[in-house]
């Protein structure tokens, strides 16, 4: 049981980071980015291609993250412009539909180019005992990276872009009044969310291969975590991620894979129906 829970935490941290990217873009721009998973897979494929070309792992990973971030910038500066011109519900709907289109475009292109593509980051080494459980080296790396990034995110909160982002989330007009450019912040966050998604794909590949077809799975997962945590709440996404990660591994271990997916989906549905603001949302 302990092993299962620890595995759950490893997974949960990644779930959390994945959810953070999704929830940030929603909190800032009111857009549910349905192409989010594709951004992750894009990063994974770039890393895979770079690795197979002999590039050192760190450079390859950086390239992947950069690619996803770049995709974010492009999407935000082009397709999202008409979306941001809308308000409220119309904005969310249009954003949803346009990003769905983008998701299909990226998915189709990647699948066409790399029909069997997958990213596997094999990290060798003896399993290390943690709290009496033998953890794979890949898991430990994934955890380490996840925690480091989480800490980074926390530190970023106090920086200029971080304060700007929080200001825009809380009151966009107010942010303008103090000299913050909401469009610039949105682009930055969109790009950052892409990098985050890419990072999760990379850490995920340390324990199990990330296939080129995994795009929508990532998106749905991110959506579930973001919803359960409370749309727009970064801390909520993180917390929800860890909790759902543990639920996921426990359920998969004792019951089965398909039921686990249903449980996660049900968690999101239940959150919406019973407590729409999620765990830590407003």
């Amino acid at each position, binding site marked *: 049981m302990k092993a299962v829970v620890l595995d759950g935490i490893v997974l949960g941290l990644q779930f959390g980071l994945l959810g953070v990217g999704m929830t940030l873009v929603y909190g800032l721009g009111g857009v549910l980015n349905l192409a989010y998973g594709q951004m992750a897979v894009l990063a994974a494929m770039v890393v895979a291609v770079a690795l197979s070309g002999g590039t050192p792992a760190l450079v390859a990973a950086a390239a992947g993250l950069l690619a996803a971030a770049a995709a974010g910038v492009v999407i935000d500066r082009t397709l999202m412009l008409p979306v941001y011109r809308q308000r409220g519900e119309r904005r969310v709907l249009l954003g949803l539909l346009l990003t769905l289109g983008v998701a299909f475009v990226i998915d189709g292109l990647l699948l066409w180019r790399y029909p069997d593509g997958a990213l596997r980051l094999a990290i060798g080494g003896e399993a290390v005992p943690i709290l009496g459980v033998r953890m794979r080296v890949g898991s430990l790396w994934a955890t380490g990276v996840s925690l480091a990034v989480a800490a980074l995110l926390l530190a970023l909160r106090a920086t200029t872009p971080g*304060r700007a982002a929080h200001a825009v989330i809380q009151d966009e007009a107010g942010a*303008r*009044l103090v000299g913050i450019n909401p469009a610039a912040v949105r682009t930055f966050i969109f790009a950052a969310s892409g990098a985050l998604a890419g990072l999760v794909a990379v850490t995920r590949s340390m324990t199990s291969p990330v296939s080129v077809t995994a795009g929508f799975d990532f998106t749905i997962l991110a959506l579930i975590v973001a919803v359960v945590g409370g749309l727009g709440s970064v801390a909520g996404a993180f917390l929800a991620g860890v909790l759902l990660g543990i639920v996921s591994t426990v359920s998969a271990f004792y019951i089965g894979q398909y039921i686990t997916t249903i449980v996660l989906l049900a968690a999101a549905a239940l959150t919406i129906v019973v407590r729409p603001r999620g765990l830590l949302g407003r």
Partner: protein
Amino acid sequence: MLEVSGLSAGYLGENVVEGVDVKVGAGQAVAIIGSNGAGKTTLFRALCGMLPVSAGQVRFDGEDITGRPAHRIARAGLAYVPAERHLFPRMSVHENLALGAFPRRPDPSAVRLVFDLFPRLQERRRQPAGSLSGGEQQMLAVGRALVSRPRLLMLDEPTTGLAPKLATSAYEALRVLKERGVTLLVAEQQVPLALSVADRGYVLENGRIRFEGASQDLARNPEVRRAYLGVA
């Protein structure tokens, strides 16, 4: 410092204000007086970039800022305090104030000035802005604008939602600011209060300037008195 010429602006193709000319000299306090629906808020929003300008020009210290996005105008030294305040509800009073100086860190002396002016804010430094009373939120909104050491401070109906006593003390604070050399442009329904602090004023009616002049002259103007001061 601020020169507005022939400004027209509105919503959905219809102009709410037309051909407005306003001048604010450095160190002056100018009031825009008018009743509800006269177009004061529309005018202010057009001036500070929150609403597109359909005609006319706005010059700030000689520079043409017409149509510039709001955040760039804010950074140019024109601070606007709207009637809705637009504070950051989940951030503390202090964090709200700090953001006033964005992108720089706040100047400690500027923050101290705000706390001197509004001691209540200092008491509630760590409280989230959303939990403050209406009057305190108004103070915070003004304070946040002040932290940026603006060259021109624009306030839209600063007495909105304030009890008369608080309204008066709000204008006391504005008087102090004026003494310290802050240039003020205030839109106000409550004419006596506005004229008590302003050197000059403009009367806005149905989107156009009807009267302008020194405060005392406006206060003596019989039409102004009848329409806005309730005097026969």
